[in-house]
């Protein structure tokens, strides 16, 4: 596996090294904040969420296992889960905060994106490309924007149960494509 400096930062955090929290903030907070802004669409809530995510990364640092994946992937899982919990706890879908959205740069292929277009990243992009475009789009907006079954069902005008089995066929195909 490639050298993963962030994994060392988590190891230091697990030992209670407070300086490592600053390293994590410098290295990972912009990415994690980008996730919060994109999924929550509300800048104030995104700031609260980032605080909570950083707290969780600190308290759970000892649970990170470098043998099972990269430190950034693990941090993103924790960040997305927290944002999803917030989204699903909302009674009403919050209107898009246009100012927050304007702060999100276009997710065009940055150098990072290009560098990551290998391995898993390359495979999922290729495999999504083989799905029916509407299914691929539904999977993307669920993962990246936190869209729910209900939201996608409204957007596409498809009943919930139909949508579930339609999306499940897409996920099965995605899995088969990625792990033939």
């Amino acid at each position, binding site marked *: 596996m490639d050298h993963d400096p962030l994994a060392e930062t988590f190891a230091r955090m697990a030992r209670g090294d407070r300086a490592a929290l600053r390293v994590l903030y410098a290295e990972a907070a912009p990415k994690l904040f980008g996730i919060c802004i*994109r999924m929550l669409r509300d800048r104030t809530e995104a700031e609260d969420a980032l605080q*909570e995510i950083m707290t969780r990364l600190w308290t759970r640092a000892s649970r990170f296992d470098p043998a*099972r994946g990269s430190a950034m992937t693990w941090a993103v899982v924790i960040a997305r889960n927290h944002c999803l919990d917030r*989204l699903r706890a909302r009674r009403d879908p919050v209107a898009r905060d246009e100012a927050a959205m304007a702060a999100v740069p276009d997710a065009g292929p940055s150098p990072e994106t290009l560098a990551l277009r290998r391995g898993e990243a390359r495979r999922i992009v290729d495999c999504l490309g083989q799905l029916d475009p509407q299914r691929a789009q539904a999977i993307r907006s669920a993962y990246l924007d936190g869209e729910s079954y209900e939201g996608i069902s409204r957007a596409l005008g498809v009943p919930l149960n139909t949508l579930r089995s339609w999306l499940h066929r897409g996920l099965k195909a995605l*899995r088969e494509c990625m792990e033939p």
Partner: protein
Amino acid sequence: MHGAVTEDDRLLAADYVLGVAPAAERARAEARIRQDRAFAAEVEGWQRRLSGLDAEFAAVEPPAALLGRIENRLFGRPQPVRRGKRILGWLSGAVAAATLAAVLLWPAAPLRPIADLTAADLSVAVLTQGDNLIFRSAAPAPSARDYQLWIIRAGQPRSLGLLTAPETVVSARLEPGDVLAVSLEPTGGSPTGLPTGPVLATAEITEL
């Protein structure tokens, strides 16, 4: 529990990682992850597969002041120690604790330390005894403030009361994944039912 992973499980795992599931289904998946290794592996498989999309999240610089707020929350801020008449309350608390300790001498479930909540001015040992949680604190809160105890489960904080004596006993059964926290609140505790002051220390319960 190590049941075989069914097709329904695979779809539940996919829905959970993708994030489309409603809150109740997310909670169900999280409970399964803790109990069922095969299901947890299924979730990890989807996390790995979909992580290829992570590169599409654009980075956004967070406000610079946020780091300080996070550090205050995790480590507390050194605060001037002003102790006045609070000490009296603390002493009467000590008497109450002695009485309580006598009651606790009754043969009971073993007393086990499970976490420490520590920050600059704060040191609280957390122990369990059967269905009770015991918080032992070294020092009272600064004047005109109270330390408030919280349990955070599934992201929702619930107050466990104030830390107004050297030993506070609360009836609560912990689950792995719970987070215990201490916040600094106005005297009498948070007026909102949620932490309003800085969270001075947190501890996640990983195993019981």
